[in-house]
């Protein structure tokens, strides 16, 4: 800031300069501290190569052979120095020549042998890559089959009990049968037409995928903090839509799959090569074994669910998350006056707005160990009334504050015994840590 040293500086210019510098110097200060520097995929690939090299060296025959060849190669490199020393001895000239020849021969042998070993290494590399691919593919197929089986089994159970109920009703009299048939009232438009409408509506109202992806990236550190996203602790995204979040996760090397009820959005995600399926959130969770997920995410899903379903999702998530696992739910923030009175109702499939207090209590009540609410996406600076007047500040707080909030809940980490369990589920309260 240029200043002549005689006149008073202009305070407003000072403030503007400081703000600009703060923004330029610490652009991602606020929620998303600590961006990933190395793409997880790259990191894993290079670790894989190092591991392979180590394995080859440990092989019973190839390993020692390679080490022997390496020491030979070292010998030929020191040949020049050896010759110098011998020539100094004059008498050893002939011996040196003969030795030189033999070392020369040996060095040729070494070159040929190294060539063959490196060919062999390449073949081993390829074979191993193929084997790893096949193995990963097989594992994911087996896992998928197991999932499908579990879904089929629970479906079968539901149908079986419905049949039993019907049978009892028939036996009891037969005239009081109530069959809930979705086709009883013909729908005004077909499901697929509605799905297409909401797919278009999603783009128009929520914004471009690239902008959303940028916002979603802010949650990557939360996944890292709980170690989610590898084979043993994959991410499950409920209400994945067209897979914006799954795409972010894939590009950063996390293992994730998603489910959504909108077939046309799921088709888009699947076409992009993402692991997305048409499935109901609760059914998908029920099909997962205990402690099998690293993180469960749900962006703008909770506000669509009937409350008892949301409640059940919290319970099922607690069961299916691994110790220290993460439940992350983002939903519109009704604390913002515009959201609570207006924008929330853009989407006719929304139920009631959910408050941060309710979501926090839901997680506490179910016994999540660490529960936090993060308010995000405030209105842009330009929408604010000028700061200074108390009335403006109050209006800014009410109208220009965060439009969404995220519930971030972690399950109890392994190795910590829960005293709350012993005291009974109703009294389940996490540790009093801030």
């Amino acid at each position, binding site marked *: *800031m240029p*200043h002549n*040293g*005689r*006149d*008073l*500086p202009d*305070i407003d210019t*000072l*403030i503007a*300069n*400081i*703000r600009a*510098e*703060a*923004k330029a*110097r*610490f652009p991602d*200060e*606020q929620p998303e501290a600590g961006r990933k520097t190395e793409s997880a995929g790259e990191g894993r690939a290079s670790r894989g190569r190092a591991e392979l090299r180590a394995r080859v060296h440990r092989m019973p025959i190839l390993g020692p052979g390679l080490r022997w060849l390496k020491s030979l190669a070292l010998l030929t490199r020191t040949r020049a120095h050896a010759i110098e020393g011998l020539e100094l001895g004059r008498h050893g000239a002939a011996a040196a020549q003969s030795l030189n020849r033999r070392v020369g021969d040996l060095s040729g042998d070494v070159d040929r042998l190294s060539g063959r070993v490196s060919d062999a290494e390449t073949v081993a590399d390829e074979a191993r890559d193929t084997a790893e691919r096949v193995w990963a593919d097989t594992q994911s197929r087996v896992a998928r089959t197991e999932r499908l089986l579990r879904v089929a089994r629970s479906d079968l159970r539901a149908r079986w009990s419905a049949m039993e109920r019907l049978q009892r009703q028939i036996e009891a009299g037969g005239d009081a049968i109530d069959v809930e048939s979705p086709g009883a009232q013909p729908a005004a438009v077909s499901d697929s037409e509605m799905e297409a409408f909401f797919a278009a509506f999603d783009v128009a109202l929520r914004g471009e995928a690239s902008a959303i992806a940028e916002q979603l990236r802010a949650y990557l550190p939360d996944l890292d903090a709980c170690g989610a996203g590898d084979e043993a602790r994959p991410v499950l995204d409920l209400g994945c839509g067209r897979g914006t979040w799954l795409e972010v996760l894939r590009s950063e090397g996390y293992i994730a799959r998603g489910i959504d009820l909108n077939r046309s959005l799921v088709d888009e995600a699947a076409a992009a090569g993402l692991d997305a399926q048409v499935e109901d959130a609760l059914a998908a969770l029920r099909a997962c074994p205990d402690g099998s997920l690293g993180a469960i995410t749900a962006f703008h899903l909770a506000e669509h669910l009937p409350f008892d379903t949301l409640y059940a999702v919290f319970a099922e998530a607690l069961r299916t998350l691994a110790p220290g696992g993460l439940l992350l739910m983002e939903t519109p923030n009704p604390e913002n006056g515009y959201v609570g009175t207006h924008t929330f109702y853009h989407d006719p499939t929304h139920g009631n707005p959910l408050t941060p207090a309710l979501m926090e209590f839901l997680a506490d009540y179910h016994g999540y160990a660490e529960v936090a609410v993060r308010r995000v996406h405030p209105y842009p600076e330009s929408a604010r009334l000028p*700061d200074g007047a108390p009335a403006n500040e109050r209006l800014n707080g009410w109208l220009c504050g965060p439009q969404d909030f995220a519930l971030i809940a972690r399950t109890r980490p392994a190795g*910590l*015994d829960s*005293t709350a369990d*012993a*005291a009974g589920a109703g009294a389940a309260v996490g*540790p*009093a*840590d*801030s």
Partner: protein
Amino acid sequence: MRILLTATHVPFMHGGAERHIQGTADALRAAGHAVETVRVPFRFSPEADVARVMEFCEGTDLNAPNGQSVDRVISLQFPTWGMRHDEHVAWIMHQHRAAYELYDPATAGRDLTDLRPQVQAFDTRTLARTRRRFANSARVAARLKHYNGLDATPLHHPPPDADAYYCAETWPYVFVPSRLERLKRQDLAIEAARHLRSPVVFMLAGTGGQTETYRQMIERAGVGDRVRLIGEISDAEKRAWYAHALGVFFGPFDEDYGYVTLEAMLARKPVITCTDSGGPLEFVRDGETGRVIPPEPEALADAVDGLHGDQTSARRLGDAGLEAYRAAGISWQGVVEALCR
């Protein structure tokens, strides 16, 4: 070790204490300990509530809650050091100041006058029971010695994000960051503005109970072009304000510790503080790392004019400040070692 960290919880009032508690928990966890924080709700008044919380704490035994083993209790705040544990270490952030150095018989009500001896007896009794005692600063240790006759070792900790501070080109303002409270004495800066001869302005950051009083004071004195209340600022903005300041004024009355002093030193800025400011005096040496002045507006104006008139010296004071900070060896690692010894 399995460590319980104890502190009070004053709902929705977030200042240095919150960051201190969080920083301690984080540092202990980083050193591999299992840490849980026990927070006791606290309100300063009515006085009967303070007495109730003292009684609650002293009646709470944390040796093996619900059969869970606890290796150590580290208490940070009054009255949680009353809780019982065989390996109890107190790291005293500060005592209940209203019953000590801030107690003024002329303005204190009956209830406070009655509470005062109870608080002092409680501290003397319960702190004597602890295995080891540390104080947040030498100032806090001195008060404990003076009022309770107990020794405590001063144990300093770094301010949050200590690595992020930086120094940049000097712009003609003095930075005054603190909550706007009477004890922080921002009124000294407002009154000093009238006496300034150099073209320097005071930038007051923070909010608090005195916001409106200070705003009116600026208006009445007609120094709006010399002093500005900029309210709450982000951490990034705070660091930028430090980086470009000519100097930093931090002249509270008898502060316990004060992150401001350390933050200013990390940003290589001279600190102007007062002879009765307490904590800052552990780090600020007059003419070496800053200025120590009597708490008077004229003296403050003089000191600021001095910095502006000789900016080479001002920079030298700032550089010496950073060296003094480094020489003090303040680190979370040191804190953890002391608390877990």
